[in-house]
C-alpha cells in the first residue's frame, strides 16, 4: 500500500517544530508501524534528509520506549497495544497518517518524535520501591500472599512506563502511572512499612514535575497498552487520603 505521512519534525528542545509531509510506497500489511518508519528513514537518508528520530528498543511491546501519537491516539488505533506492535494491517492504501510526539510539558521533545520521560524515573525515586538491601530478605515463602492480592498487584505492576496515559489525558496527568506503582506495592504486605510515605512523596514529585491533576475521564485506561485499570487511581486516592488523615506530625 502507499501512504501519506504527516510527521512532527523538531530539531531539538529549544527550536520550534512543525509538520512535514512524506510519502511511502509499497508498504506491506505485515510490517509493523516502526518498520514502515524504517523504510521511510532509509528513503530520507538516500535523499539526503535527516531521518526521523523516535524512541524504540525491544519492538515487542514490553520495554515501553516507543511513543508515537498516531492519528489522535497514543500508540495508534489498536487498543491494548504499543506503537511497535501496531501493524500496517490497521491502515489502508492511500491513508494519510498524522504522527505527533507525546504532548505534555513534563515530557519535553528531545528531537522529532522523541520525548524526555525522565520525570517518571524521578517519581519512582521519590518512593516507588521497597527499602530492602540486598541480603536482607527472608525466605520467599515465609510470607504467604493471597493469590488475588498477588494477581492484582501484578496487574498494576505490568505498567511499562511508556507515558501513553499522560499523552491521552486532557490534563496531562500521570495519575495512572503513579497509581499503578502505588497499587503494585500497596497490595503486597512487603510494601506496608513505607505505604504512607510512599504515596505522599510520589504524589508530591508528580506535582512538582508538572503533570496535571486527574479528573477521572478514563481516557488513560482505554489507551494503556497494558490495560492498567482506572480502579488503581481510586486506590491511590484512598491511600493518599488515609496517609494524610492519619499523619501524626
Amino acid at each position, binding site marked *: 500500500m502507499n501512504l501519506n505521512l504527516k510527521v512532527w519534525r523538531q530539531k531539538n528542545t529549544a527550536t520550534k517544530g512543525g509538520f512535514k509531509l512524506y510519502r511511502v510506497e509499497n508498504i506491506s500489511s505485515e510490517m509493523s508501524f516502526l518498520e514502515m518508519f524504517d523504510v521511510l528513514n532509509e528513503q530520507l537518508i538516500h535523499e539526503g534528509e535527516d531521518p526521523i528520530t523516535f524512541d524504540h*528498543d525491544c519492538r*515487542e511491546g514490553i520495554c515501553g520506549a516507543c511513543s508515537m501519537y498516531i492519528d489522535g491516539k497514543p500508540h495508534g488505533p489498536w487498543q491494548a497495544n504499543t506503537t511497535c506492535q501496531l501493524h500496517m494491517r490497521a491502515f489502508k492504501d492511500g491513508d494519510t497518517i498524522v504522527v505527533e510526539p507525546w504532548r505534555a510539558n513534563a515530557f519535553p521533545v528531545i528531537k522529532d518524535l522523541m520525548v524526555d520521560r525522565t520525570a517518571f524515573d524521578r517519581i519512582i525515586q521519590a518512593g516507588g520501591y*521497597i527499602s530492602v538491601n*540486598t*541480603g536482607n530478605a527472608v525466605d520467599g515463602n515465609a510470607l504467604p500472599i493471597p493469590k488475588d492480592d*498477588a494477581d492484582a498487584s501484578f496487574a498494576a*505492576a505490568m505498567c511499562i512506563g511508556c507515558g501513553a496515559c499522560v499523552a491521552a489525558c486532557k490534563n496531562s496527568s500521570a495519575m495512572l502511572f503513579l497509581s499503578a506503582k502505588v497499587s503494585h506495592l500497596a497490595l*503486597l504486605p512487603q510494601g506496608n512499612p513505607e505505604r504512607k510515605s510512599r504515596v505522599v512523596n510520589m504524589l508530591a514529585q508528580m506535582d512538582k514535575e508538572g503533570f496535571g491533576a486527574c479528573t477521572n475521564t478514563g481516557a488513560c485506561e482505554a489507551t494503556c497498552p497494558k490495560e492498567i485499570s482506572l480502579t488503581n487511581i481510586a486506590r491511590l486516592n484512598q491511600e493518599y487520603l488515609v496517609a494524610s488523615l492519619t499523619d501524626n506530625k
Partner: protein
Amino acid sequence: MLDAKIPAGALDDKWTDYKGHCKLVNPANKRKLEVIVIGTGLAGASAAASLGEMGYKVKAFCFQDSPRRAHSIAAQGGINAAKNYQNDGDSVFRLFYDTIKGGDYRSRESNVHRLAEVSANIIDQCVAQGVPFAREYGGLLSNRSFGGTQVQRTFYAAGQTGQQLLIGAYQALERQVALGNVKMYSRHEMLEIVKIDGKAVGIIARDLITGKLERHFGHATLLCSGGYGNVFYLSTNAMGSNVTAAWKAHKKGAAFANPCYTQIHPTCIPVSGDHQSKLTLMSESLRNDGRIWVPKQKGDSRKPNEIPEEERDYYLERRYPAFGNLVPRDVASRAAKERCDEGYGVGSSKQAVYLDFSEAIIRYGKIEAGKEGNDHASQEDLIKLGKDVVKEKYGNLFDMYAKITGEDPYEVPMRIYPAVHYTMGGLWVDYELQTNVPGLYALGEANFSDHGANRLGASALMQGLADGYFVLPYTVGNYLADEIYNKAVATSHAAFEEAEKEVSDRINRLMNIKGKQTVESFHKRLGKIMWNKCGMARNAQGLQEAITEIQALKKEFWSDVKIPGSIDEMNPELDKANRVADFIELGELMCKDALNRNESCGGHFREEYQTPDGEALRDDANYMYVAAWEYAGESNWNLIKEPLVYDVIKPTQRNYK
C-alpha cells in the same frame, strides 16, 4: 595464560570459603571508591543497587532513556532457583548438574555451582522487593517446568518475569539514586575503556542527546552490557542491544571467550518478509502445553486443522521420548531446522513448524469439567473451558502472536521457527567475574561464564541477578580493598585525553566517509552472512567464506557508509554506525572461533561433527577448553585456552531420549 582463580577445596565449599577469606573494604573507605556500571539490565541494575547500598560511589550508564528499559525486561518465561518448593527432588546439585549438562559440558564447574548455590537467595530478595511472582491459592509461590529439566523449579510472573524482576532491580537502583549513592547517566553510551598501567580506571562515554564526549573515572568498571545476538541483524534482542562496550574492552586487552556459542531459540515467530527488523520470541514455557509437529507428507499444503492426527509427525516426541517437547533449546532448534530442510516446513515460507495447543485445550477442558462434576461435557464446552485455562496461563503471549501474525492461535496452531536469542560467549572472566584487565569486570550475558555452549531456559535471569546481587558485591571488594591506597585519577590525565581523542577521531572518520550505503543495509548484509554461515549449522568451508566476506564488508563499510546529520546532536544513525562497525569485527571473530572448534557442542553445531542420528558430537579430548581470544591487531587474534576440569561431573554425550 589466563588464571581463572578458582578457589581450592571441595566444590560445595569453594564459594563459602571464598567469602570467608576475601578481602573487605571498611565502610569509610567504600565512600571513597568509585565504581562505574555499564548497562542497567538485571546484572547492571542489581550490581549498581547493591554496591550503592554497601556505600560505594556508583555511576551507572545506559543508552536507553531509562534504566527500566534494558532488554532484560523482555524475558518472558521465568527464573530458576533450587528451592525444591515442589518436593520433586530438586537441589543445588541438581540445578548445577542440569546447567552443566545443558551447557554441553563446556562451562566451569566452580562458577556454575556458585550460581546454583545463590539461586535461592535471588527469589527471596526479589520477593522482598515486591516482585509479584505467580502464587498458588494458599498464598505460596508457584513453579513451572522448563526445557532441559525434569523438576519444577521455575518461578514466574505470567509471561513477564523479566519485566517484573527488572522493575524490582530498577526500583532498588532508583532508591540508591534518590539516596545519592548512585548517579544515573541515561542516554549515554560507553565508547572506550581508559587504562593506566594495565588497570582499567574509567571510561569515555558519549551523551547521546548532545553528542558530547565525557570522561568518567572509576576504581573499577563493570560491564553489564548484555549479549551480542544483534550481530545476526535479526534476533530477539532489542534494536539497541549491542556489543560495543564489550568490544571496546576486548580491543583494550580483555579476552573474548567462546564467541561462537550462540543460542538459537526454537520458538519464535517466523520471518514474514524482507522488511523485518526483529524477531519476537514466544516463551519456552509454551512448550509445556504446546505440541510441536509438521505434516508427515512433504510439502503438504493443507491447512493445519485439515491434517488428520495420524498424518502429523510430532518429531520431538518421536525422537526424544523422555523429554519430548521439553528438550533443551539447541536440540529443539536443530530438530526444527532439520525438518524444514528436509521439506516438511509449513506456512508460506516453509520455514516454520506448528506449535499446537488443541490437545492441551481439551485436556484442561476435561479437568475443568471434572471439577464441576460434569462428565458428559460436549466437545464445544470442553474447548471453551480449556481455552479459558490456556488464556489464563499464556494469554499475553497469544495476544502478541495474534497482533503480529493476524492469526488466532486459539483456533489455528502457532507457526514457529528458531531465531537467535542469547549469546553464551562473552568477555572472559575469572571466578571473581574479573576480565584479564584488572579493575574491569563483566557480568550477566556480557560474560561467558556459566552457560557453556548452551543455556537452559530461565537461567539467564538467574545468572544476571546472581552476578549482580550476590557474587560481584563480594568479589569486587577483593580488588577494591587494595585500591583504597589509590586516589581517584583526575580525568585530565593523559590516558583520558588520549582515549577521548581515539573516540572522537573514530567518530569523525565515520562521519566523513559520506558514502552511499546506509548503516542499516550493512547491518542486514552482515546478518545474512552470519545467519547463513555461522548460524544454526556451520561448516569449515562456509566459515572460511564468511570470514572473507566479512573482511570485504568491513572495507566497504569504512569507505561507503552514509551517516546523515552531525556529531553534536541526537543522531541515532551515528550511534548505530558505531555499533555496526563493532559487530562487523565481532562477526569475523565468531567465525574464526567456530572454525577453530572442530566439534559440535550445544549451540555450536558443525555439520562435519555429528552422530549418525544427527546429534551433536563433542570432542572432549581436544576441545574441552574455553577458547579465549586476545586481540592482536586488525583481523588478528591469539587463542588462549583455558582447560575445563571436571572434578565432580563426568561428561557424557547429552541424552534427552
